[in-house]
Protein backbone atom coordinates (compact mmCIF):
# COMPACT_ATOMS: atom_id res chain seq x y z
CA UNK A 1 0.00 0.00 0.00
CA UNK A 2 1.21 3.47 -0.84
CA UNK A 3 -0.26 6.92 -0.30
CA UNK A 4 -2.69 7.74 -3.10
CA UNK A 5 -0.44 10.45 -4.49
CA UNK A 6 2.36 7.99 -5.30
CA UNK A 7 0.39 5.83 -7.69
CA UNK A 8 0.95 5.88 -11.43
CA UNK A 9 -0.44 9.06 -13.09
CA UNK A 10 -2.47 6.93 -15.47
CA UNK A 11 -4.33 5.46 -12.48
CA UNK A 12 -5.01 8.99 -11.21
CA UNK A 13 -6.33 10.07 -14.58
CA UNK A 14 -8.73 7.12 -14.82
CA UNK A 15 -9.87 7.56 -11.23
CA UNK A 16 -10.60 11.29 -11.38
CA UNK A 17 -12.22 11.15 -14.80
CA UNK A 18 -14.56 8.36 -13.67
CA UNK A 19 -15.42 10.11 -10.41
CA UNK A 20 -16.26 13.45 -11.98
CA UNK A 21 -18.04 11.83 -14.94
CA UNK A 22 -20.40 9.64 -12.90
CA UNK A 23 -21.37 12.44 -10.56
CA UNK A 24 -22.28 14.59 -13.56
CA UNK A 25 -23.99 11.71 -15.32
CA UNK A 26 -26.15 10.33 -12.49
CA UNK A 27 -27.64 13.39 -10.83
CA UNK A 28 -29.35 11.71 -7.89
CA UNK A 29 -29.37 12.71 -4.18
CA UNK A 30 -27.63 9.65 -2.72
CA UNK A 31 -24.80 9.54 -5.24
CA UNK A 32 -24.28 13.30 -5.19
CA UNK A 33 -23.94 13.30 -1.41
CA UNK A 34 -21.59 10.28 -1.51
CA UNK A 35 -19.42 11.86 -4.18
CA UNK A 36 -19.32 15.23 -2.43
CA UNK A 37 -18.35 13.60 0.87
CA UNK A 38 -15.71 11.51 -0.87
CA UNK A 39 -14.20 14.53 -2.64
CA UNK A 40 -14.26 16.66 0.53
CA UNK A 41 -12.78 13.93 2.74
CA UNK A 42 -9.95 13.32 0.26
CA UNK A 43 -9.24 17.05 0.09
CA UNK A 44 -9.21 17.52 3.86
CA UNK A 45 -7.27 14.33 4.60
CA UNK A 46 -4.54 15.52 2.26
CA UNK A 47 -4.61 19.24 2.99
CA UNK A 48 -6.10 19.52 6.49
CA UNK A 49 -7.44 23.05 6.87
CA UNK A 50 -5.05 24.83 4.54
CA UNK A 51 -6.51 27.35 2.06
CA UNK A 52 -9.33 28.18 4.45
CA UNK A 53 -10.66 31.17 2.57
CA UNK A 54 -11.08 29.32 -0.72
CA UNK A 55 -13.65 27.07 0.95
CA UNK A 56 -15.74 30.12 1.79
CA UNK A 57 -15.65 31.03 -1.87
CA UNK A 58 -16.83 27.53 -2.79
CA UNK A 59 -19.61 27.82 -0.24
CA UNK A 60 -20.73 31.15 -1.72
CA UNK A 61 -20.71 29.59 -5.18
CA UNK A 62 -22.83 26.72 -3.88
CA UNK A 63 -25.39 29.11 -2.36
CA UNK A 64 -25.68 31.25 -5.49
CA UNK A 65 -26.16 28.24 -7.73
CA UNK A 66 -28.65 26.61 -5.39
CA UNK A 67 -30.67 29.84 -5.32
CA UNK A 68 -30.57 30.46 -9.05
CA UNK A 69 -32.42 27.33 -10.08
CA UNK A 70 -35.75 28.06 -8.31
CA UNK A 71 -35.62 31.68 -9.51
CA UNK A 72 -35.43 30.69 -13.16
CA UNK A 73 -36.98 27.25 -13.23
CA UNK A 74 -40.70 27.16 -12.49
CA UNK A 75 -41.36 23.47 -13.08
CA UNK A 76 -42.78 21.40 -10.23
CA UNK A 77 -46.17 20.93 -8.62
CA UNK A 78 -45.65 22.15 -5.04
CA UNK A 79 -45.69 25.94 -5.04
CA UNK A 80 -43.98 27.47 -2.02
CA UNK A 81 -44.44 31.17 -2.78
CA UNK A 82 -44.94 33.61 -5.63
CA UNK A 83 -42.42 36.24 -6.67
CA UNK A 84 -43.60 38.64 -9.39
CA UNK A 85 -46.32 36.13 -10.33
CA UNK A 86 -43.65 33.48 -10.83
CA UNK A 87 -44.02 30.39 -8.68
CA UNK A 88 -41.12 29.18 -6.58
CA UNK A 89 -41.56 25.42 -6.31
CA UNK A 90 -40.26 22.95 -3.78
CA UNK A 91 -39.04 20.66 -6.55
CA UNK A 92 -36.95 23.39 -8.16
CA UNK A 93 -35.44 24.31 -4.77
CA UNK A 94 -34.47 20.69 -4.03
CA UNK A 95 -33.12 20.19 -7.55
CA UNK A 96 -31.11 23.40 -7.29
CA UNK A 97 -29.51 22.30 -4.03
CA UNK A 98 -28.46 18.92 -5.42
CA UNK A 99 -27.31 20.33 -8.76
CA UNK A 100 -25.14 22.85 -6.89
CA UNK A 101 -23.83 20.04 -4.66
CA UNK A 102 -22.97 18.07 -7.79
CA UNK A 103 -20.97 20.99 -9.13
CA UNK A 104 -19.24 21.45 -5.81
CA UNK A 105 -18.25 17.78 -5.85
CA UNK A 106 -16.82 18.14 -9.37
CA UNK A 107 -14.96 21.26 -8.24
CA UNK A 108 -13.31 19.45 -5.33
CA UNK A 109 -12.43 16.39 -7.43
CA UNK A 110 -10.73 18.72 -9.88
CA UNK A 111 -8.92 20.62 -7.13
CA UNK A 112 -7.35 17.48 -5.73
CA UNK A 113 -6.68 16.28 -9.27
CA UNK A 114 -4.71 19.38 -10.17
CA UNK A 115 -2.78 19.19 -6.89
CA UNK A 116 -1.78 15.60 -7.60
CA UNK A 117 -1.29 15.90 -11.36
CA UNK A 118 1.91 17.97 -11.46
CA UNK A 119 3.29 19.08 -14.81
CA UNK A 120 5.85 16.28 -15.11
CA UNK A 121 3.10 13.71 -14.62
CA UNK A 122 1.06 15.43 -17.32
CA UNK A 123 4.03 15.23 -19.67
CA UNK A 124 4.54 11.58 -18.80
CA UNK A 125 0.93 10.89 -19.76
CA UNK A 126 0.78 12.82 -23.01
CA UNK A 127 4.41 12.85 -24.12
CA UNK A 128 4.01 9.49 -25.84
CA UNK A 129 0.99 10.53 -27.90
CA UNK A 130 2.13 14.02 -28.78
CA UNK A 131 5.78 14.87 -28.10
CA UNK A 132 5.47 18.33 -29.69
CA UNK A 133 2.52 19.35 -27.56
CA UNK A 134 4.28 17.99 -24.48
CA UNK A 135 7.40 20.02 -25.28
CA UNK A 136 5.46 23.24 -25.85
CA UNK A 137 3.50 22.68 -22.65
CA UNK A 138 6.56 22.00 -20.53
CA UNK A 139 8.49 24.96 -21.94
CA UNK A 140 5.56 27.32 -21.44
CA UNK A 141 5.14 26.11 -17.87
CA UNK A 142 8.78 26.86 -17.22
CA UNK A 143 8.62 30.26 -18.94
CA UNK A 144 5.69 31.59 -16.93
CA UNK A 145 7.57 32.11 -13.63
CA UNK A 146 10.68 33.20 -15.55
CA UNK A 147 8.72 35.86 -17.43
CA UNK A 148 6.90 37.01 -14.33
CA UNK A 149 10.24 37.51 -12.60
CA UNK A 150 11.78 39.27 -15.61
CA UNK A 151 8.71 41.50 -16.00
CA UNK A 152 9.07 42.60 -12.40
CA UNK A 153 12.74 43.35 -12.98
CA UNK A 154 12.02 45.44 -16.09
CA UNK A 155 9.20 47.20 -14.28
CA UNK A 156 11.42 48.06 -11.30
CA UNK A 157 14.13 49.38 -13.58
CA UNK A 158 11.70 51.58 -15.48
CA UNK A 159 10.27 52.93 -12.25
CA UNK A 160 13.74 53.64 -10.90
CA UNK A 161 14.51 55.52 -14.10
CA UNK A 162 11.46 57.68 -13.40
CA UNK A 163 9.66 56.73 -16.58
CA UNK A 164 6.24 56.90 -15.01
CA UNK A 165 4.44 58.16 -11.96
CA UNK A 166 2.33 55.92 -9.82
CA UNK A 167 -1.40 56.36 -9.19
CA UNK A 168 -2.01 57.53 -12.70
CA UNK A 169 -4.13 55.18 -14.76
CA UNK A 170 -2.97 56.31 -18.19
CA UNK A 171 0.69 56.35 -17.21
CA UNK A 172 0.35 52.95 -15.60
CA UNK A 173 -1.33 51.45 -18.64
CA UNK A 174 1.27 52.83 -21.01
CA UNK A 175 4.05 51.65 -18.73
CA UNK A 176 2.46 48.20 -18.59
CA UNK A 177 2.35 48.10 -22.38
CA UNK A 178 5.99 49.18 -22.56
CA UNK A 179 7.09 46.54 -20.06
CA UNK A 180 5.13 43.93 -21.93
CA UNK A 181 6.64 44.99 -25.23
CA UNK A 182 10.12 44.65 -23.75
CA UNK A 183 9.14 41.22 -22.48
CA UNK A 184 7.98 40.08 -25.92
CA UNK A 185 11.27 41.00 -27.55
CA UNK A 186 13.29 39.49 -24.73
CA UNK A 187 11.17 36.33 -24.65
CA UNK A 188 11.33 35.74 -28.39
CA UNK A 189 15.11 36.22 -28.58
CA UNK A 190 15.57 34.09 -25.49
CA UNK A 191 13.37 31.41 -27.02
CA UNK A 192 15.37 31.35 -30.25
CA UNK A 193 18.60 30.91 -28.30
CA UNK A 194 17.00 28.06 -26.37
CA UNK A 195 15.78 26.45 -29.59
CA UNK A 196 19.24 26.68 -31.20
CA UNK A 197 20.81 25.22 -28.11
CA UNK A 198 18.35 22.36 -28.18
CA UNK A 199 18.99 21.64 -31.85
CA UNK A 200 22.73 21.75 -31.26
CA UNK A 201 22.37 19.12 -28.56
CA UNK A 202 20.38 16.88 -30.85
CA UNK A 203 16.80 17.48 -29.79
CA UNK A 204 14.41 15.54 -31.98
CA UNK A 205 16.94 12.86 -32.90
CA UNK A 206 15.82 9.60 -31.47
CA UNK A 207 13.22 8.87 -28.85
CA UNK A 208 12.27 11.38 -26.19
CA UNK A 209 13.01 10.29 -22.66
CA UNK A 210 11.24 11.29 -19.47
CA UNK A 211 12.73 13.06 -16.49
CA UNK A 212 10.64 11.06 -14.06
CA UNK A 213 9.93 7.42 -14.64
CA UNK A 214 6.66 5.97 -13.49
CA UNK A 215 6.39 2.22 -13.57
CA UNK A 216 3.31 0.11 -13.29
CA UNK A 217 3.66 -1.72 -10.00
CA UNK A 218 1.36 -4.49 -8.88
CA UNK A 219 -0.50 -2.07 -6.57
CA UNK A 220 -1.10 0.25 -9.55
CA UNK A 221 -2.74 -2.57 -11.46
CA UNK A 222 -4.72 -3.48 -8.37
CA UNK A 223 -6.02 0.07 -7.86
CA UNK A 224 -6.78 0.47 -11.56
CA UNK A 225 -8.73 -2.80 -11.65
CA UNK A 226 -10.64 -1.91 -8.48
CA UNK A 227 -11.56 1.49 -9.92
CA UNK A 228 -12.74 -0.01 -13.19
CA UNK A 229 -14.67 -2.79 -11.43
CA UNK A 230 -16.50 -0.36 -9.13
CA UNK A 231 -17.11 1.98 -12.06
CA UNK A 232 -18.65 -0.79 -14.13
CA UNK A 233 -20.90 -1.87 -11.24
CA UNK A 234 -22.14 1.72 -10.93
CA UNK A 235 -22.61 2.11 -14.69
CA UNK A 236 -24.42 -1.22 -15.07
CA UNK A 237 -26.59 -0.45 -12.05
CA UNK A 238 -27.33 2.99 -13.49
CA UNK A 239 -28.16 1.52 -16.89
CA UNK A 240 -30.58 -0.92 -15.23
CA UNK A 241 -32.33 2.05 -13.66
CA UNK A 242 -31.08 1.68 -10.09
CA UNK A 243 -30.11 5.35 -9.96
CA UNK A 244 -33.25 6.69 -11.65
CA UNK A 245 -34.72 9.75 -10.04
CA UNK A 246 -37.75 11.86 -10.74
CA UNK A 247 -37.43 15.55 -9.91
CA UNK A 248 -40.38 17.08 -11.77
CA UNK A 249 -43.35 17.48 -11.54
CA UNK A 250 -43.28 15.83 -8.11
CA UNK A 251 -40.28 14.46 -6.24
CA UNK A 252 -40.00 10.72 -5.93
CA UNK A 253 -37.45 9.31 -3.49
CA UNK A 254 -34.50 7.31 -4.85
CA UNK A 255 -34.89 3.54 -5.01
CA UNK A 256 -33.85 1.36 -2.07
CA UNK A 257 -34.17 -2.20 -3.43
CA UNK A 258 -31.29 -4.68 -3.54
CA UNK A 259 -29.91 -3.58 -6.91
CA UNK A 260 -29.93 0.06 -5.85
CA UNK A 261 -28.20 -0.78 -2.56
CA UNK A 262 -25.43 -2.69 -4.35
CA UNK A 263 -24.94 0.27 -6.67
CA UNK A 264 -24.80 2.70 -3.75
CA UNK A 265 -22.20 0.57 -1.97
CA UNK A 266 -20.04 0.41 -5.11
CA UNK A 267 -20.45 4.16 -5.55
CA UNK A 268 -19.48 4.83 -1.95
CA UNK A 269 -16.41 2.56 -2.19
CA UNK A 270 -15.35 4.30 -5.40
CA UNK A 271 -15.75 7.75 -3.87
CA UNK A 272 -13.89 6.93 -0.65
CA UNK A 273 -11.17 4.72 -2.19
CA UNK A 274 -8.34 7.31 -2.05
CA UNK A 275 -9.37 8.50 1.42
CA UNK A 276 -9.23 4.90 2.67
CA UNK A 277 -5.79 4.47 1.09
CA UNK A 278 -4.51 7.70 2.66
CA UNK A 279 -5.84 6.88 6.12
CA UNK A 280 -4.61 3.28 5.92
CA UNK A 281 -1.15 4.43 4.91
CA UNK A 282 -1.05 6.93 7.76
CA UNK A 283 -2.22 4.34 10.28
CA UNK A 284 0.47 1.94 9.11
CA UNK A 285 3.10 4.67 9.35
CA UNK A 286 2.07 5.52 12.91
CA UNK A 287 1.99 1.85 13.86
CA UNK A 288 5.49 1.15 12.49
CA UNK A 289 6.84 4.30 14.09
CA UNK A 290 5.66 3.40 17.56
CA UNK A 291 7.21 -0.06 17.31
CA UNK A 292 10.73 1.24 16.62
Amino acid sequence: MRPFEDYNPFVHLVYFVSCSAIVMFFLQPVTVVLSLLGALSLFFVRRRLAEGRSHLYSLALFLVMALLNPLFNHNGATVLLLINHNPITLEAVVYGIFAAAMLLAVLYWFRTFSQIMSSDKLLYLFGGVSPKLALILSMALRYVPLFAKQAKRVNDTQRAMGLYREENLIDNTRAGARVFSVMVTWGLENGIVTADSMSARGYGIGKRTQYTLYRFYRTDVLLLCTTLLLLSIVVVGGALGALDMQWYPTLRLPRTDALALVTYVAYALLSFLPTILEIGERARWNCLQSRI
Partner: protein
Amino acid sequence: MMVIKSARLRTVLRWLIPFVLIPTAVIVGLLVLEQRQHLLVTLAVVLLSLLLFLCSFEKRAVGVRRQVIIAVMVALSVAGRFIPFFKPVTALTVITGAYLGGESGFLVGALAAVISNFYFGQGPWTPFQMLAWGLIGLFAGLLSQPLRRSRAAIIVYGVISGIVYSAVMDVWTVLSYDSGFTWSLYGAALLTALPHTALYAVSNFIFLWLCARPFGEKLERVKKKYGV
Protein backbone atom coordinates in the same frame (compact mmCIF):
# COMPACT_ATOMS: atom_id res chain seq x y z
CA MET B 1 2.51 21.43 -37.09
CA MET B 2 1.97 17.75 -36.58
CA VAL B 3 0.71 17.40 -33.02
CA ILE B 4 -0.13 13.71 -32.73
CA LYS B 5 2.80 11.43 -33.43
CA SER B 6 1.37 8.27 -34.87
CA ALA B 7 0.06 8.78 -38.42
CA ARG B 8 -2.37 5.86 -38.14
CA LEU B 9 -3.92 7.22 -34.95
CA ARG B 10 -4.28 10.61 -36.62
CA THR B 11 -6.13 9.27 -39.65
CA VAL B 12 -8.36 7.02 -37.59
CA LEU B 13 -9.32 9.87 -35.24
CA ARG B 14 -9.86 12.30 -38.11
CA TRP B 15 -12.55 10.07 -39.56
CA LEU B 16 -13.88 8.58 -36.34
CA ILE B 17 -14.53 11.83 -34.46
CA PRO B 18 -16.82 13.76 -36.84
CA PHE B 19 -18.64 10.75 -38.30
CA VAL B 20 -18.91 8.34 -35.37
CA LEU B 21 -17.98 9.74 -31.98
CA ILE B 22 -19.66 13.16 -32.02
CA PRO B 23 -22.94 11.81 -33.51
CA THR B 24 -22.89 8.99 -30.94
CA ALA B 25 -22.41 11.44 -28.09
CA VAL B 26 -25.25 13.65 -29.36
CA ILE B 27 -27.65 10.73 -29.96
CA VAL B 28 -26.90 9.17 -26.58
CA GLY B 29 -27.39 12.66 -25.11
CA LEU B 30 -30.77 13.00 -26.85
CA LEU B 31 -31.87 9.59 -25.59
CA VAL B 32 -31.09 10.45 -21.98
CA LEU B 33 -32.10 14.07 -22.35
CA GLU B 34 -34.98 13.77 -19.89
CA GLN B 35 -32.37 13.15 -17.22
CA ARG B 36 -30.76 16.45 -18.22
CA GLN B 37 -27.18 15.56 -18.96
CA HIS B 38 -26.49 18.42 -21.34
CA LEU B 39 -23.37 19.39 -19.46
CA LEU B 40 -21.70 16.04 -19.93
CA VAL B 41 -22.72 15.73 -23.58
CA THR B 42 -21.48 19.23 -24.35
CA LEU B 43 -18.26 18.52 -22.51
CA ALA B 44 -17.73 15.34 -24.55
CA VAL B 45 -18.41 17.14 -27.84
CA VAL B 46 -16.06 19.98 -26.88
CA LEU B 47 -13.27 17.57 -25.94
CA LEU B 48 -13.74 15.59 -29.14
CA SER B 49 -13.63 18.69 -31.32
CA LEU B 50 -10.45 19.82 -29.56
CA LEU B 51 -8.95 16.43 -30.40
CA LEU B 52 -10.19 16.74 -33.97
CA PHE B 53 -8.41 20.05 -34.43
CA LEU B 54 -5.20 18.62 -33.00
CA CYS B 55 -5.43 15.67 -35.43
CA SER B 56 -5.97 17.81 -38.48
CA PHE B 57 -2.78 19.78 -38.06
CA GLU B 58 -0.57 18.38 -40.79
CA LYS B 59 3.14 17.88 -40.83
CA ARG B 60 4.99 20.98 -41.83
CA ALA B 61 8.67 21.55 -42.29
CA VAL B 62 9.18 23.46 -39.09
CA GLY B 63 11.80 22.88 -36.51
CA VAL B 64 12.19 23.42 -32.84
CA ARG B 65 12.11 27.19 -33.33
CA ARG B 66 8.42 27.45 -34.09
CA GLN B 67 7.56 25.24 -31.15
CA VAL B 68 9.64 27.41 -28.85
CA ILE B 69 8.06 30.60 -30.24
CA ILE B 70 4.61 29.15 -29.54
CA ALA B 71 5.71 28.25 -26.01
CA VAL B 72 6.97 31.82 -25.54
CA MET B 73 3.68 33.32 -26.74
CA VAL B 74 1.70 31.01 -24.45
CA ALA B 75 3.87 31.91 -21.48
CA LEU B 76 3.64 35.64 -22.29
CA SER B 77 -0.12 35.55 -22.42
CA VAL B 78 -0.26 33.77 -19.07
CA ALA B 79 2.44 35.90 -17.42
CA GLY B 80 0.75 39.04 -18.77
CA ARG B 81 -2.22 38.31 -16.56
CA PHE B 82 -0.03 39.20 -13.58
CA ILE B 83 0.48 42.76 -14.87
CA PRO B 84 -2.42 44.90 -13.62
CA PHE B 85 -5.00 46.11 -16.19
CA PHE B 86 -3.92 43.47 -18.71
CA LYS B 87 -5.83 40.42 -19.82
CA PRO B 88 -3.77 39.73 -22.89
CA VAL B 89 -4.71 36.13 -23.75
CA THR B 90 -7.25 36.96 -26.45
CA ALA B 91 -5.15 39.75 -27.92
CA LEU B 92 -1.95 37.70 -28.05
CA THR B 93 -3.81 34.74 -29.53
CA VAL B 94 -5.18 37.01 -32.26
CA ILE B 95 -1.75 38.48 -32.98
CA THR B 96 -0.12 35.03 -33.11
CA GLY B 97 -2.86 33.70 -35.38
CA ALA B 98 -2.55 36.64 -37.74
CA TYR B 99 1.25 36.61 -37.99
CA LEU B 100 2.24 32.97 -37.48
CA GLY B 101 -0.78 31.19 -38.98
CA GLY B 102 -3.98 29.63 -37.71
CA GLU B 103 -2.48 26.42 -36.31
CA SER B 104 -0.05 28.34 -34.11
CA GLY B 105 -2.89 30.65 -33.09
CA PHE B 106 -5.05 27.67 -32.13
CA LEU B 107 -2.27 26.13 -30.07
CA VAL B 108 -1.45 29.40 -28.30
CA GLY B 109 -5.10 29.98 -27.38
CA ALA B 110 -5.79 26.41 -26.26
CA LEU B 111 -2.58 25.97 -24.29
CA ALA B 112 -2.83 29.41 -22.68
CA ALA B 113 -6.17 28.26 -21.26
CA VAL B 114 -4.67 25.08 -19.82
CA ILE B 115 -1.63 26.78 -18.36
CA SER B 116 -3.36 29.81 -16.91
CA ASN B 117 -5.77 27.41 -15.23
CA PHE B 118 -2.82 25.83 -13.45
CA TYR B 119 -2.69 29.18 -11.62
CA PHE B 120 -6.35 30.19 -11.60
CA GLY B 121 -8.00 26.78 -11.09
CA GLN B 122 -8.72 23.86 -13.39
CA GLY B 123 -12.25 22.60 -13.82
CA PRO B 124 -14.78 21.29 -16.29
CA TRP B 125 -14.68 24.74 -17.90
CA THR B 126 -11.08 24.28 -19.10
CA PRO B 127 -12.04 22.49 -22.37
CA PHE B 128 -14.58 25.23 -23.15
CA GLN B 129 -11.93 27.91 -22.70
CA MET B 130 -9.47 25.89 -24.77
CA LEU B 131 -11.88 25.55 -27.66
CA ALA B 132 -13.07 29.18 -27.50
CA TRP B 133 -9.58 30.70 -27.42
CA GLY B 134 -8.24 28.13 -29.88
CA LEU B 135 -10.91 28.98 -32.43
CA ILE B 136 -10.24 32.71 -31.99
CA GLY B 137 -6.62 32.02 -32.94
CA LEU B 138 -7.56 29.73 -35.81
CA PHE B 139 -9.92 32.24 -37.41
CA ALA B 140 -7.37 35.00 -36.91
CA GLY B 141 -5.03 32.85 -39.01
CA LEU B 142 -7.65 32.45 -41.73
CA LEU B 143 -8.25 36.23 -41.78
CA SER B 144 -4.55 37.02 -41.53
CA GLN B 145 -4.39 39.15 -44.73
CA PRO B 146 -6.91 41.85 -43.71
CA LEU B 147 -5.88 41.66 -40.06
CA ARG B 148 -2.27 42.35 -40.91
CA ARG B 149 -3.09 45.16 -43.29
CA SER B 150 -5.07 47.47 -41.00
CA ARG B 151 -4.95 48.19 -37.33
CA ALA B 152 -8.69 48.89 -37.25
CA ALA B 153 -9.46 45.40 -38.54
CA ILE B 154 -7.39 43.64 -35.90
CA ILE B 155 -8.89 45.80 -33.14
CA VAL B 156 -12.44 45.09 -34.33
CA TYR B 157 -11.66 41.37 -34.58
CA GLY B 158 -10.12 41.36 -31.11
CA VAL B 159 -13.06 43.17 -29.48
CA ILE B 160 -15.63 40.95 -31.23
CA SER B 161 -13.77 37.78 -30.31
CA GLY B 162 -13.56 38.96 -26.69
CA ILE B 163 -17.35 39.37 -26.64
CA VAL B 164 -17.90 36.03 -28.38
CA TYR B 165 -15.57 34.41 -25.87
CA SER B 166 -17.66 35.72 -22.97
CA ALA B 167 -20.85 34.56 -24.69
CA VAL B 168 -19.44 31.06 -25.17
CA MET B 169 -18.31 30.87 -21.56
CA ASP B 170 -21.82 31.95 -20.46
CA VAL B 171 -23.18 28.88 -22.24
CA TRP B 172 -20.99 26.87 -19.90
CA THR B 173 -22.27 28.90 -16.93
CA VAL B 174 -25.88 28.17 -17.85
CA LEU B 175 -25.22 24.48 -18.44
CA SER B 176 -23.54 24.18 -15.08
CA TYR B 177 -26.36 25.93 -13.15
CA ASP B 178 -29.22 23.78 -14.19
CA SER B 179 -27.81 21.07 -16.45
CA GLY B 180 -30.35 22.37 -18.93
CA PHE B 181 -30.23 25.23 -21.41
CA THR B 182 -32.94 27.86 -21.08
CA TRP B 183 -32.84 31.15 -22.94
CA SER B 184 -34.09 33.14 -19.96
CA LEU B 185 -31.21 31.88 -17.83
CA TYR B 186 -28.76 32.50 -20.66
CA GLY B 187 -30.05 36.06 -21.00
CA ALA B 188 -29.64 36.58 -17.26
CA ALA B 189 -26.11 35.17 -17.36
CA LEU B 190 -25.21 37.47 -20.27
CA LEU B 191 -26.67 40.43 -18.38
CA THR B 192 -24.81 39.73 -15.13
CA ALA B 193 -21.61 39.18 -17.08
CA LEU B 194 -22.05 42.50 -18.89
CA PRO B 195 -19.60 44.55 -16.79
CA HIS B 196 -17.05 41.77 -17.15
CA THR B 197 -17.58 41.54 -20.88
CA ALA B 198 -17.33 45.31 -21.26
CA LEU B 199 -14.11 45.43 -19.25
CA TYR B 200 -12.76 42.58 -21.33
CA ALA B 201 -13.65 44.31 -24.60
CA VAL B 202 -12.09 47.58 -23.45
CA SER B 203 -8.92 45.86 -22.29
CA ASN B 204 -8.67 44.03 -25.61
CA PHE B 205 -9.23 47.31 -27.43
CA ILE B 206 -6.49 49.12 -25.52
CA PHE B 207 -4.08 46.22 -25.74
CA LEU B 208 -4.48 45.75 -29.48
CA TRP B 209 -4.47 49.49 -30.12
CA LEU B 210 -1.15 49.85 -28.33
CA CYS B 211 0.47 46.54 -29.18
CA ALA B 212 -0.89 44.97 -32.38
CA ARG B 213 1.54 46.78 -34.68
CA PRO B 214 4.72 46.57 -32.61
CA PHE B 215 4.13 42.94 -31.62
CA GLY B 216 3.35 41.99 -35.19
CA GLU B 217 6.54 43.67 -36.31
CA LYS B 218 8.49 41.79 -33.66
CA LEU B 219 7.06 38.47 -34.81
CA GLU B 220 7.73 39.39 -38.45
CA ARG B 221 11.28 40.28 -37.59
CA VAL B 222 11.91 37.02 -35.76
CA LYS B 223 10.31 35.15 -38.65
CA LYS B 224 12.56 36.86 -41.19
CA LYS B 225 15.73 36.87 -39.15
CA TYR B 226 15.64 33.28 -38.01
CA GLY B 227 13.46 31.73 -40.70
CA VAL B 228 10.86 30.29 -38.35
